[in-house]
Every structure is written in C-alpha cells, then in structure tokens.
C-alpha cells in the first residue's frame, strides 16, 4: 500500500521540482536522482508484490474527491489549449462531452456505488510497473544528455527543458497510477493525464507541424476518452459497479457486458494507435527522440494494450473479441508492409511499433490462455527492444545529422559501439532466439487453435514483411564502408549508460526468458483462467535460451581463423582502391553510393494506409452495428 503510493507520488514531486528549479545543473542532478529513485521503487514494488497479488481499497471520501479535482484540472488545461490558446474548439468539445458524462455520473447514478478495491496489484501490473519504472527512468536519464545536445543543435527552438522534464515525470507518475488502478474512475483520470501529457510532449518544439501533430494525438485520444467515459457510465448504471475486476467477473458469469467491453477496447485502440488511429503515433515523430521512445516503448501505447489485455478473458469468439482480433491482425499486416517503403529510421520504427501493437491486440482478442500469455510476453519484449532502438536512432541522428537509414551505412565503422546496440535492438525485434520471435511462435499457435484461417494468413504474411524491412536495415548497418575517424566521442556519457543498460536488458530478457515466464507471466495468466499449461514446452524454451547465449558469444570468434588476403570490391569499373569510387568511362572517377530498396509500388504508404484504415474501420463499424442491434433487441 505504502509502496504503490510512493510510486505515484515520487515522480510527481520530481516533476514539480524540475519545473520550479531553473538552474540546469541542479535539474540534471534532480532528474538523475528521481530516475534512480523511481527505478528503485519499481523494483521494490516488484519484489514485494510479484507472485502475491493484492487488492487495496482506499478509505474515505478523500481519494475520489482528489481524483475528481484532477479530472477537472486536466479538463480545464485542455480547454485552455484547445479553446483559448489554439482555437480548435471542436477538440475541446470532445473533452467537454466526457467531462459532462463523468460529472453527471459522479453526482447522480454513481454516487452511492461502493468500491471494494481501488487498486489491483497483480503480476501484470507489476510487470508494467517494472517496464515503466526501469525503461522510463532510463529514458529520462538519456534525455538529460540528449536534450542538452538538442538545444545546441536547434537554437531556433525555445529552451523549455524544465517543462519537458516536468511532463516526462508527470507521465511516469500517471502511468504507474494507470496500471495499478482497478477502479475505472481512477484509471480514467490517469488515462486522461497520459493523453494530455503526450499532447504536450509532441508539441514541444512549437513548430506548426508539431502543433498540428500534437492536436491530432489529442483528438484521437480524447475520442478514446469519450468511449472510456461512456463505458464507465454504462457499467455503473447497469451493474452498479466501477471496478475492472467486477466487470471481468460479470462477463465470466455470462452477463451481457459486450458493449461495455467493446467501448473499452475501442478506447484502447485509440491509445495503442491501431489503424485507423495510427496517425497520431506517426505524427509524434516531430518531437525530440526521447519523447518517441517513451511513447512507443514503455508508456502511452502500452497503456492501450494494457487495458485490452486486462479484458482478455472477456474477448474471444464474440463481437467485441472478433473486432479486437481483426483490427489487430489488419494493423499488424498493413503496418509492417508500410514499414518496407519507409527510409526515415524513426518512421520505420513507428510503423514497426504499430504493427507489433497490432500483434499484441490480435493475441488479446483471441482471449485464450495461451494468447493472453503471448500478449503479455510481447509487451515486455517490445518495450525493451523498441526503447533501445529509439535511443540508438536518436543518438545516430545527432552524430550523423540525419535519421535516414540511407545515411546509416558505414555506421559499423564510424560508430561501432552504437551499431552494436542497434544490431542487438534489431535482432531483439524479429530474430530467433530473441523474445519477440518466441512470442510470435506462441501467437501462431494460439491463432491456429482459435481456428481462424484469415488471421493465420495475416500472421504468416506479416511475419514475412517484418523480416524484410528489419533485415534491410540490418544490412545497411552491417555494410562495411571504411570511415576516416570514429564519431563516437561526441556521444554524451549518460546516453551510453542508457544504451548499454538497455542492450544488456534485451539480452538478459532473452536468456532468462523461461524464468520470466515461470515467475512473472504464467502466475498472472493462471490466476485469471484458473488453469495452467506450458504455452511453449520447457525443452524448446531451453533450446532458445541456449541459442541466445550462443548468439551472444559468437562475435567473440569474429576474427578467428586463417589470415585472409584483403582485396577491393568489384565495382562497375576499375576500383580506385578504397571501395568508394571507381574509374568509369573515359577515365572519369565515379563515386559509389548504394541505396536500399523500398518497393514503393507494392508497399507504398498511402496505399497500405488506405487498405488498412478502410478494413479496420469496417470491422469496427460492423462489430458495433451488430452489438447495437443485439442490445436494442433484448
């Protein structure tokens, strides 16, 4: 009880502190202390509660009053930005709508509802706390060095670092609150805070593009918020409860809660950037890299899938479940196709995030024991590898002055250590024996068991396209282009700290995969489904672990073997000797430059978006129409 409270309060205090203190040195010091404290607290929480789920009820009127007050404050802040400062009133209306619903509910139907458990600290919540706590804090530490450089490189951007770190810590605090809540009214409040914080972070640079994109993120997430509020009101009015655990019990007791579940899932879609709401996540790229890393890996989008996975037992072969599966599957496939045609490193990462979230949502939609296990596993591995990827790309962008993958060739020689981090990240994203792939394995099994051939096909094709865009990128990094000098000294010490910690974490998670499953994920899933089973047999997990160790050890033998005679490569004419130019027609020296392959005609972004948006929108409309029909007939 004490620990979860601290977990929310400490980042909040840190946020206020960094906002008030204007001296750069003191701020750096406080961010690092606060990040370390948050990390330690999340580990302590994990140590206390892992394997010992507990429900906590907060006594008295005070907590709900505070939550109400926060709701109103956030709403006022949103009104200020939408109606006063930037004059986009219709977005403010979305907020007004949900605030009205919540206030009406609190003072009317919801007033007398007794809440048995406000907080639920189960293994899944603990895992999410660890993800947000460790990865989020590492990103905060990284930002320290990164933002310093960022401000130097972009003198036109106003230095609002106190504000930046304020929002980062506010975000972390809200994220902890969100994953620990069982009372949906609490969760809704934290949900709103994360939506609002992401709006602030995306708009950091205050360029026109940034402002437009931040409003895009805001309206999409507020739309989700409206669905959330509607779900709370519906649940409260019909069943006199506002607890997530009670909703699960109602659903498992065959009560008709489908519409409520579908509304919550819809809300999850907006936050998890499922198509057609993927636009805001792509737009978030305009913000400084740590923002993207935070939104993509450990917080924002993970909150969306967190809610959907929590609802897992109620999904499956019903309208809400079908909608979840298909929207997830469609997003997985089309986003991974769109990633092929992108050359901007951050956009590739964004599409890969969207696609992986699609996979997670697909698993959650299937709703079986194995699928739930897979979904949680995917969340863990995606969080670690994706944050590593974002921080690596951000660092490379600063050193190479471009985040285009085309300019990454030669990284292997110019930035060897950074290239190593990036290779670990990429391998973690798609290659066996790393976690993402093991999870995909389990996903295939669950989809096959669910008996849906269309989804199986999406999974098989999506895996192939995923392989294509990652390997393409890997090839670009591995390309051996001799460099004049190492560019690594330019990288800040705290940046290395975060990068190395995440690389080690990625490898550790892969090697310790069986332990992670046994002590973390399996107990949670077993408790929810009242059964236990091995999703992937122990012997296979062991083989994968051994293979992971093997892959880590292999580079030690990098230069072993006979001495090789070095020669120049075969170019279109006589190589001038450095592999970078050749003597072409009429003795002219021609520079060699190689470009990657993007298959625009096949996988063009606009085309993929058109199909993806259309199909997933169709799924949602159909599902809601069918449920609506059902509700009003009964």
């Amino acid at each position: 009880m004490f620990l979860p409270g601290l977990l929310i309060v400490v980042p909040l205090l840190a946020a206020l502190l960094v906002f008030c203190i204007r001296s750069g040195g003191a701020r750096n010091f406080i961010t690092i202390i606060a990040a370390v404290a948050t990390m330690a607290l999340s580990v302590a929480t994990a140590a206390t509660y892992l394997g010992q789920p507990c429900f906590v009820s907060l006594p008295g009127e005070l907590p709900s009053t505070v939550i109400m007050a926060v709701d109103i404050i956030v709403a006022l802040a949103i009104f200020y930005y939408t109606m006063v400062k930037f004059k986009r009133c219709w977005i403010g209306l979305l907020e007004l709508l949900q605030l009205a619903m919540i206030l009406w509910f609190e003072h009317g139907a919801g007033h007398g509802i007794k809440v048995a458990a406000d907080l639920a600290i189960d293994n899944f919540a603990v895992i999410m706390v660890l993800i947000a706590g460790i990865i989020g804090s590492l990103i905060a530490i990284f930002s320290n060095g990164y933002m310093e450089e960022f401000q130097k490189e972009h003198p036109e951007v106003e230095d609002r670092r106190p504000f930046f770190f304020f929002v980062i810590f506010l975000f972390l605090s809200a994220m902890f609150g969100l994953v620990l809540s069982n009372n949906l009214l609490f969760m809704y409040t934290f949900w709103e805070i994360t939506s609002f914080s992401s709006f602030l972070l995306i708009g950091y640079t205050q360029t026109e593009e940034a402002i437009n994109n931040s409003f895009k993120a805001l309206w999409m997430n507020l739309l989700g918020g409206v669905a959330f509020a509607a779900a709370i009101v519906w649940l409260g009015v019909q069943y006199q409860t506002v607890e997530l655990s009670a909703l699960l019990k109602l659903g498992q007791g065959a009560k008709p809660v489908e519409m409520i579940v579908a509304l919550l899932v819809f809300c999850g879609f907006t936050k998890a950037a499922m198509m057609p709401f993927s636009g805001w996540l792509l737009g978030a790229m305009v913000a400084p890299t740590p923002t993207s890393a935070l939104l993509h890996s450990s917080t924002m989008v993970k909150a969306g899938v967190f809610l959907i996975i929590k609802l897992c037992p109620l999904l499956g072969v019903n309208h809400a479940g079908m909608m979840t599966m298909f929207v997830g599957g469609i997003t997985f496939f089309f986003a991974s196709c769109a990633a092929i045609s992108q050359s901007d490193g951050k956009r590739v990462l964004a599409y890969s995030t969207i696609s992986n979230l699609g996979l997670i949502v697909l698993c959650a939609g299937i709703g079986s024991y194995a699928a739930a296990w897979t979904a949680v596993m995917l969340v863990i591995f995606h969080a670690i590898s994706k944050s590593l990827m974002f921080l690596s790309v951000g660092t490379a962008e600063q050193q190479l002055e471009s985040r285009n993958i085309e300019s990454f060739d030669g990284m292997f020689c110019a930035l060897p250590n950074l290239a190593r981090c990036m290779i670990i990240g990429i391998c973690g994203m798609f290659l066996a024996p790393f976690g993402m792939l093991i999870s995909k394995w389990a996903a295939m099994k669950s989809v096959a068991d669910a008996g849906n051939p269309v989804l199986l096909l999406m999974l098989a094709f999506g895996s192939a396209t995923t392989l294509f865009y990652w390997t393409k990128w890997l090839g670009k990094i591995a390309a051996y282009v001799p460099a004049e000098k190492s560019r690594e000294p330019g990288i800040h010490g705290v940046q290395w700290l975060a990068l190395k910690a995440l690389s080690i974490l990625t490898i550790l998670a892969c090697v310790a995969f069986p332990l992670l499953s046994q002590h973390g994920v399996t107990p949670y899933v077993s408790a929810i489904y009242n059964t236990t089973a091995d999703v992937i047999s122990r012997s296979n997990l062991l083989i994968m672990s051994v293979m992971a160790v093997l892959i880590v050890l292999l580079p030690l033998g990098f230069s072993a073997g006979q001495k090789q005679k070095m020669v120049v490569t075969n170019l279109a004419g006589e190589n001038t000797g450095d592999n970078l130019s050749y003597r072409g027609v009429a003795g002219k020296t021609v520079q060699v430059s190689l470009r990657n392959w993007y298959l625009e005609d096949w996988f063009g972004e606009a085309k993929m978006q058109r199909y993806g948006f259309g199909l997933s929108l169709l799924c949602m409309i159909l599902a809601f129409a069918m449920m609506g029909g059902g509700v009003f007939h009964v």
Partner: protein
Amino acid sequence: MCDMAVNIGNIVLGIAYLVLAPLIGGLLAGIDRKISARMQRRVGPPIMQPFYDVFKLWDKQPVAVNKAQRFYIRGFLLFAVLSGFFFFAHGDLLLVIFTLTIASVCFVIAAYASNSPYSQVGAERELAQTMAYEPMMLLVALGFYLHCGTFDAKEIVQSSAMNFIYMPGIFIGLCYILLIKFRKSPFDLSMSHEVHQELIQGALTEISGPTLAMIELAHWYENVLLLGFVYLFFTWSPVWSPVVGLAMCAFTYFSDIVVDNCCSRVKWEHMLSSAWVVTLVAGFANVAFLMYMR
C-alpha cells in the same frame, strides 16, 4: 527408461544428419548437374564433381573484401546445420523454420556487408525471395500442426494416414517455394549456377575460396533438410511407408531439375506475386479445410 532410449535415438539421428547430409547433399548436386547436362545433350561432369569443387575451394588462399564477411557466412553455415539438426533430432517444426530464417538472414547480411553494388543487388533479391517463401514455410508447419495436433516431426511421421491426403494444397505450395529455396530457375534471382542469366555472381560476387566452400556446404545441408519436409508429407505409420517418402523426395527433386531446365529467370515481381498467390490460394484453402476438419 523408454524416454531415455527415444532421446538417445533422436540424438543419434541428429548426428547421422550432421555426418550424412553433406554426402547426400553433394551427391544430389552431382546428380543434378549430370541430369541437367543430359537434358542439354552434354556429357556433364562426373557425379563426384561437387565434392572436388568444394575441396579445391577449401584449399585456396583465403581472399576477402572485409573481415566481417566470413563471420556472417560462418553464421549461415552454423544455423543451417543447426536447423537441420533440430529437424532430424525431432525438434519442433516452427523452431526449425525460425532457425532456418536466421541462417538466411546471415547470408543476406554477408552479401550486404561487402558493400559492393552487385553483391547488394544479390542481397536484396535474396531478401525478396525470403519474403516470397516465408509465409508458405510457416503455413507448412501450421498445416502439420492443424492436421496432426503437434509440431513434433516424430509424431507427424506416425500419423494414421498419409498426411498428403489432407494437405495437398500445402504440398503444392511447398513444391512451389522449393524452387526458390533450391535456387532453381525460374526463381534463381539472387545467385545462379547458370552463367548466362547471372549479374556477375549475384550475392556471391565478393565471396571466394574457403568462404564460398562454406556456402556450398550450407546449401547441401539446407537441401537435405528441405527434402525432409517433403518426406513428412508421405510417411505415416506403416513400416514400409518411408520408402514412399524417400521416393517422393527423389521425385520432387527430379521435377525441380526438369523445371529448372525448362525455364529462364523471371523478374522479381513475378516471383513475389506468384509465390504469394500460390500461398494464398493453395495454402489458404487447405488451411481453412484443416480448420474445418478439426
């Protein structure tokens, strides 16, 4: 005790693969060259020629364009061997396919690493080939899972009727992508044994000597493993059924040689679209049927 015996049996089979696969693979390559030569009214090299070639390559002075290349090729060989070992020691089919995928990624990266234009074209084509066959490979494993309820090769060969009867569509799909995996025309885009249709040497442009020998060896291992997948379709519980399985492996390999000699290389667009269409039509119809049967 029984478990132990089975385990030891599996490992013996796995080790047998490690020793015999290069012999069988090399022989198959020799037979391939002989048959192709006869189809083209040539005498052709001796059956043992592939072995002579590899030994000769092995003895050459190691020449490379950079230090990284050999490392990736070793990875290719290691994981190709490992995936075959998993298969014959009765591992999980998905594990086998994933390991095989690592092997092909290593090969592609090796080609990318040399940073030469011809090599990169080869790497990209190889990657397009991987993208073309990957969905079907996964559907093969999932098809067996749907039909037999397991990914375990040992149980699959013990099923009560010939698996092919229930999975003809998936078998057709597998045969189609085998043309890509065996690097046969019309799908030998990334590297080809036919000089007249090759862009310098495709993905192999910058690779020579012992490193090239390793690639050849890895392909032999890989080919035997792929024929193992064909074997799974035609072997079931009776003791004599392995004969059928082996005969069908031989037949499939022969058919691929015939196709190889009848076709010239197609554009990558045709390869990708046709492979995906075959996967969509044959694979999907069959998978839907299997799901309906369950």
